[in-house]
């Protein structure tokens, strides 16, 4: 049974007289104890969706059900403080005038009265969960960013809520700490078993932590799937581009070999053979999305069907790999090479594109789809996907 059901959620607000749609009739369901991620660029409506779940925003229309209780519909709205949730904010929102203990104990003082000993035990338990037990007497302002983040998590969990809402909780931490918190957060969520909605713009966070990911853009959910589905078989150029670095090649289907389940495409870089994983007809326009780590680079030709001749533009050594930017004809490709490889600018190299690694995206007739490609997707994602 779904723990959270969102149906036709719509949120409009007024910006200087103009109606702006932040969330456009979005529907999704989250299973009990699932770690569900809303992923998308800034302004895609993911945070608004989360805030509607928390009751901090009142949607324009739609229905939200949490744990079988309708918390929002056209008939009424349950205010935030009556929803069974815990929330972690991007800026931690740790109350500076309270101690660590008081911060975590706060949610326990809101409902029916609990005896002091119970409160103490539960605060301790929550702090233990996030490895903060020894800081219980500190002032909140004496904590580092990472510690404030843990404190904020303990505070969200202390009421043992049905739903945990996380609003970009890791984005204010530095890179090292972020990596560690990713792991800890996921462990913790499995241990305490709480349905979790996680909002992020960071594809690495989304891929590494989620059970399922909903990719959002312009107020709409574009694709829902497991991290592997999202990464390996994106349904659109947007998803392919947003979740990891991708090279796109436009082409037309020339022949279809149903026995071998392969298609041959005519593209700007010549003939390309791809595995067939979507329904296609001869003459269809397609975009081929290829991940940098799916290709191989060498100074010698490859025996496979897709052996491309390329010129190196630049090779960026990133430690565990070399991020090559090459061009084949006029087309630019990003290829991940072994850290031992060392091709220089203007070197001639061969690129192997295994047919199994080509992701075909059917294109509408009006030409290449618009690429809403935010800057942060340009960060190489390759480092993390090798593991």
């Amino acid at each position, binding site marked *: 049974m779904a723990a959270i059901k969102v149906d036709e959620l719509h949120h*409009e607000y007024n910006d200087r007289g103009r109606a702006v749609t932040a969330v456009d009739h979005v529907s999704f369901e989250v299973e009990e104890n699932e770690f569900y991620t809303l992923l998308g660029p800034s302004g895609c409506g993911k945070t608004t969706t989360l805030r509607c779940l928390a009751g901090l925003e*009142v949607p324009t229309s739609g229905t939200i059900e949490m744990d079988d*209780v309708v918390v*929002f519909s056209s*008939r009424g709205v*349950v*205010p935030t403080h009556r929803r069974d949730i815990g*929330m972690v904010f991007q800026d931690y*929102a740790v109350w500076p005038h309270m101690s660590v203990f008081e911060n975590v104990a706060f949610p326990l003082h809101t409902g029916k009265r609990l005896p002091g000993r119970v409160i103490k035990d539960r605060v301790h338990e929550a702090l233990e969960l996030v490895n903060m037990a020894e800081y219980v007497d500190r002032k909140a302002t004496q904590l580092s960013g990472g510690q404030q983040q843990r404190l904020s998590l303990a*505070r969200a969990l202390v009421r043992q809520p049905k739903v945990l809402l996380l609003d970009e909780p890791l984005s204010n931490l530095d890179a090292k700490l972020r990596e560690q918190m990713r792991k800890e957060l996921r462990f913790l969520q499995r241990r305490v078993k709480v349905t979790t909605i996680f909002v992020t713009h960071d594809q690495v966070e989304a891929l590494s932590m989620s059970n399922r990911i909903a990719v959002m853009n312009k107020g709409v959910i574009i694709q829902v799937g497991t991290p592997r589905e999202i990464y390996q078989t994106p349904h659109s150029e947007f998803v392919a581009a947003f979740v990891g670095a991708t090279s796109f090649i436009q082409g037309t289907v020339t022949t279809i070999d149903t026995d071998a389940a392969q298609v041959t495409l005519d593209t700007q870089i010549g003939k390309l053979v791809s595995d067939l994983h979507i329904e296609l007809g001869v003459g269809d326009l397609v975009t081929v999305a290829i991940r940098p780590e799916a290709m191989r680079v060498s100074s010698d030709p490859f025996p496979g069907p897709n052996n491309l001749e390329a010129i190196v533009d630049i090779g960026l050594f990133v430690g565990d790999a070399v991020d090559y930017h090459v061009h084949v004809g006029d087309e630019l490709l990003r290829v991940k090479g072994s850290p031992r490889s060392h091709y220089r600018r203007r070197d001639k190299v061969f690129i192997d594109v295994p047919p199994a690694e080509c992701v075909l995206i059917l294109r509408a007739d009006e030409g290449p789809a618009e690429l809403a490609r935010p800057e942060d997707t340009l960060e190489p994602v390759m480092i993390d996907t090798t593991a």
Partner: protein
Amino acid sequence: MTTTIDRDEPVTVKPGRAAKADRKGPRRRISARTVINTITILVLLYLVLGPLIMLVVSAFEDTSGGVVITPPFPWTGANFDTVFTSSETYSVLWTTVLFSGGALIFAFAVSLTFAWLVERTDMPARNTIFVLVVAPQGMPALISAIAWSLLLNPTNGFLNEVLRRVFHLSGPGPLNVYSLPWMILVQGMALVPLTFLLVTASLRGMNASLEDAARTSGSGFWTIARKVTLPLLRPAIIGALVYEFVTVVEAVDIPLVLGLPGHVTVLSTQIYNASHPPVGLPNYGVGSTYGIFLLILALAPLLFYNKIIGNSSDYVTVTGKTFRPKIQELGRLKPWAMLFSWGYIFVSFALPLLILIWASIQPYFGTLSRDALKRVTVKSYKSTLSSDLFATALKNTIILGLATAAGSMILAMLVSWIIVRSRSRFRWMADVLAFLPHAIPGVVIGLSTLLIYLILPIPVYGTIWIIAIAMGTQYVSLGTRLTTGGIAQIQRSLEEAAEASGAKQRHVWRRVLVPLLRPVFFNGFLMVFLASIQNLTLPLMLYSTGNLVLSSLIYTRWDYGDATGTAVLSVVMTAITIVAALFLRGAGGRRAGD
């Protein structure tokens, strides 16, 4: 199974959004928040618009029988005829322009010079000078006007006597403080402390690297000052200018004490005279008409101000990291700079204070002589301070200060919350209403508050509470400026985290907002307290025997001709305000001063 939480209460449309997009619109409860917001805005509407409506109504009525707010209205244009046809009106307007323009030019020239000397040069004892330039803020303008009258009145002014003796002159003079130039000077000096504070604060906050960049581009001192520093300070200077302009045009203290004897009349005293004539009945209609004039005069610069400050993001002068700015070495100019600084401090602060102390320990005010030294006595302190009048006035002053400060700060907090946090469609209204009293001259607030409670069956007329209401209205602007900044600094998520933790609105205020706002509230409370005990305009406009406060007591004693008693009260009052100001500096000084 699915359960729905029913909401059977009537629909309250959440402003701004739901109305258009969803015809049915979700039903919502009337939350405690909505109720508080509505009450706050209604109170504000009543306090701010009520007086203004009365002002306009009475300006268009024949008020010989009092102001009428039920039909039949005695509508008439006679008041405007009187005002427009009288040549006096134009001379009063011209005097007002000269008076306020002169005082502002003086105050800004002095303040900018001091700001530069203190912040950007190697002048010795800069911190002491800073404190001493600000210190006269503790001396209300009324008292400094009295002090200057004691120093420079043409008959027995202390300095005049000295000059006469030195130059063997006879007759009155040679200097006459009861004239426009001296009024300008005294008013200018009274404006310096606050102007200086405002200007230094922004000079200090200015990123010094902007000046360094000009320096490394090859600019010299004057080019940097002219092309970089002053343009960057422009919003701050204009902001202070507009603020101080309202202060000057609404002031009655210096125009009454120095202008009345010399027959120099400005708009504010014209209004006071019309509503408090020495003989005959008050003419509220004409007073209100002049009030409308003054209101327009005070509002005019605001339009100009908004135009410039509207794109204030072009002037981002304060950045997180500021480096120590380059210190200009004064070199040969150092003695002159010091002479200027200490000379000004002596004239603006020490001299008035000394003359007041001198007058307060003399049985009657006379010249400095061996006999006078023998007459030194503290008897007047005993008699004045033990009088019932003083006891009443002191009690009233404290009640007034506390009530005004508490009332306006609580209202300011609630208003700021609406301005900063709510999405109510009335938000702009709260913003405008809270700002408006700042632009309404005190005499106008006083007059219109008087008009309202002459009519309304609320028994505050003639009590201390009518002054408290008028002052609360006036200082809600000051309070809102402070609390809006304070609430804006509190991240919204701190409140949301409390809500998401299950806290009701009441708890959010009690456990999160109020504790976090306590320093801001306390700071504002003291500021309003200080301003309200110094204020003479409102106590005088709403004066009656039952609501005497220290400032109106001082003025009435002065008006009565009791120099010694006035001096005693002035010294005591100055001591009180300086102590309160020190308190304020201790509490919020780091924010205001640093």
